[in-house]
């Protein structure tokens, strides 16, 4: 299967069932996912350094509630202040425009080499493929993104995109693409990446980053990173483009200081991440470094539509990844089966909200509604509630003759008639009892092995 087609298959929520079945039976992935559980414990330690973490979550949640309620004013203010400092602001309503705007900037500046620091939004818009088709070289510089770019895979986690890969797999990849001695040692692999990516920082004509926050009061753009590639990307090339979406705007630096406390602890179990870069405008006249041009692309692709809906709270998401770190489903199937940019609980909701029912309608059902995600979400998004709301949206759209709708309608009907209900229950009991084996366990019902019976029995009714 061609690499392109392979990537297309992986990157499609409609293939959810096929993809997760493949992953359940993948022992390498199982090992990787087991390894990644350590982040659950490390987060528990990190939150201890805040005297009242639940209070902090309340504050962050309220900041986001208020910001999202006031986006109109915040963004107008932000734009005014950003422009004052020399930022060139672009607005985009669809992915094609995002890519076109960036290409136009590149063309105007005769850009041949682009370096990128992590940006999920450019994954949404498919920027890399777009620029490569226009013969512009794009190098991902975040270690995880670099790995998956070179193995031609989509990210499987929003913070650690190569979390599904073992060090042996990375070693095999690096021995193919680097002209260096093969090693299985993680430190040496990292050093190799540093050496191989470094020249790109100095050769780049344009740097593209994301933005974790926009600060309305000052017109600033903030990125939160650990590796240093974000700083390289926003300082060395002569042009810097930050791609962000409208819901990232907050008011001021007090709010930023507060949000950072929950973000870094929830994302990487750090009290603070290594580099917090707050950029406001371009290189000042006498500065020795910094880009001559700074562009910010404010995209609203589907966001205002979500804002108008009953799942608007998903826009509070600050992309920490805590929900997927604590999700039993994510930890069984990994990130790829979710089929698009965002995996895990927030991914099910956002993918489904942005791509619609037909393409991603299965995703909100792939949850036990345990709420292990909701209790760790730093901005208190009621994730299971939003999943149920999306299920309602899908349910209303499906045909009355679909099997699930027939069963549920039937169940609701008999539940309103206690005599019929009890008769039905006793019939079910009789049928189930007949299916049981000598040890009082059922392995199929009337010859049918429903999903329950995959490597599991059903106890006989007592």
């Amino acid at each position, binding site marked *: 299967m061609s690499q392109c087609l392979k990537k297309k298959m992986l990157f499609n929520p409609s293939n959810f069932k096929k993809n*997760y079945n493949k992953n359940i039976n993948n022992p390498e992935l199982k090992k990787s996912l087991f390894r990644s559980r350590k982040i659950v414990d490390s987060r528990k330690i990190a939150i201890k350094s805040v005297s009242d973490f639940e209070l902090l979550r309340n504050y962050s949640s309220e900041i986001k509630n208020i910001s999202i309620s006031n986006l109109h004013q915040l963004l107008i203010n932000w734009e005014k202040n950003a422009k004052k400092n020399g930022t060139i602001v672009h607005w985009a309503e669809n992915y094609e425009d995002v890519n076109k705007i960036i290409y136009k900037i590149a063309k105007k500046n005769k850009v041949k080499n682009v370096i990128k620091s992590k940006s999920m939004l450019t994954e949404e818009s498919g920027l890399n493929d777009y620029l490569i088709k226009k013969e512009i070289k794009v190098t991902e510089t975040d270690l995880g993104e670099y790995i998956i770019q070179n193995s031609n895979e989509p990210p499987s986690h929003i913070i650690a995109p190569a979390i599904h890969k073992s060090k042996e797999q990375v070693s095999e990849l690096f021995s193919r693409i680097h002209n260096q001695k093969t090693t299985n040692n993680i430190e040496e692999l990292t050093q190799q990446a540093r050496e191989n990516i470094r020249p790109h920082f100095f050769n780049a004509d344009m740097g593209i980053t994301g933005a974790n926050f926009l600060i309305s009061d000052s017109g600033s753009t903030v990125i939160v990173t650990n590796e240093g590639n974000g700083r390289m990307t926003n300082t060395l090339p002569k042009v810097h483009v930050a791609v962000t979406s409208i819901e990232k705007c907050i008011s001021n630096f007090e709010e930023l200081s507060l949000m950072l406390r929950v973000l870094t602890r929830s994302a990487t179990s750090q009290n603070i991440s290594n580099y917090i870069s707050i950029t406001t405008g371009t290189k000042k006249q006498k500065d020795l470094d910094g880009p001559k041009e700074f562009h910010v692309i404010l995209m609203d692709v589907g966001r205002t539509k979500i804002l108008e809906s009953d799942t608007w709270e998903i826009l509070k998401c600050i992309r920490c990844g805590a929900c997927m770190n604590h999700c039993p489903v994510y930890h069984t199937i990994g990130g790829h089966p979710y089929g698009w940019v965002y995996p895990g609980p927030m991914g099910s909701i956002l993918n489904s909200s942005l791509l619609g029912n037909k393409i991603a309608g299965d995703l909100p059902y792939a949850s036990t509604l345990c709420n*292990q995600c909701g209790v760790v979400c730093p901005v208190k998004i009621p994730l299971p509630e939003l999943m149920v709301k999306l299920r309602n949206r899908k349910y209303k759209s499906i045909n009355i003759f679909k099997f699930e709708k027939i069963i549920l309608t039937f169940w609701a009907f008999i539940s309103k008639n206690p005599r019929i209900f009890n008769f039905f229950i006793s019939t079910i009991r009789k049928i189930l009892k007949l299916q049981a084996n000598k040890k009082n366990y059922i392995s199929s019902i009337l010859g049918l092995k429903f999903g329950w019976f*995959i490597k599991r029995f059903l106890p006989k009714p007592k």
Partner: protein
Amino acid sequence: MKVGLFYTCLVNIFDPDLAYKAKKILEFFDYEVVIPESQTCCAQPNFNSGDFDNSQELSKSFINDFYGIDYIVVPSGSCAGMILKNYPELITNFPDEIKEKYKSLKKNIFEFSDFIYKKIGSEQFSQFSLEKELTYHDSCSGLRQLKIKNQPREILKKIKGVKINEMSEPEECCGFGGSFSLKFGGISSEIVEKKCSDIIKTNVKNVCLGDLGCALNIKGKLEWMKEDIEVSHLIDILHESMFKKENVI
């Protein structure tokens, strides 16, 4: 005081005895137990599948079935959670009469272990004895919707001879999730395998919990894994300690 027992569908199908055991326990502590015959389903299967319209109808039925009873006890964290946490949204467009009924119901609905803990007191169980080493699985709805964590443990600890050996991750979901276990059976089965491995590592012969859905899931998997570990609802353990292995009529 009258206690209404909402025994739940899964109990109705898989273990009706549990309802009678619950009744016996409550009667021992001088509660008059009523079991409204018109009760059916709390609407959770419909609600969780996104069928809000029918869920609304069923919530109305429940409210009418149980209105007027002093207390309502539910041997399931997920059903109690449904009624306490999701009904408010379902009844927003109903006439005030229904809303008032629900308002008065709401303060008197309890998940089973919560009722015992708050209204009867764990201390009452120090008069009973049962030699049992068990581990306790926290059902997700009970834990995260209703904050059921200490209640069952405090009650169990009071019974002479009961020892709780905690698994490494008792709060980890067992993978049941209602229709999830049917729709995504493969994933569900993998999740419960992890839970069972955790249980097996405790070396106990009994896992206790508060939701029959979790019980069926864990029991069905343990059998598939060829592990001989008993799965009991809290009601089973309490009943056994109080009445030993009497036949329930």
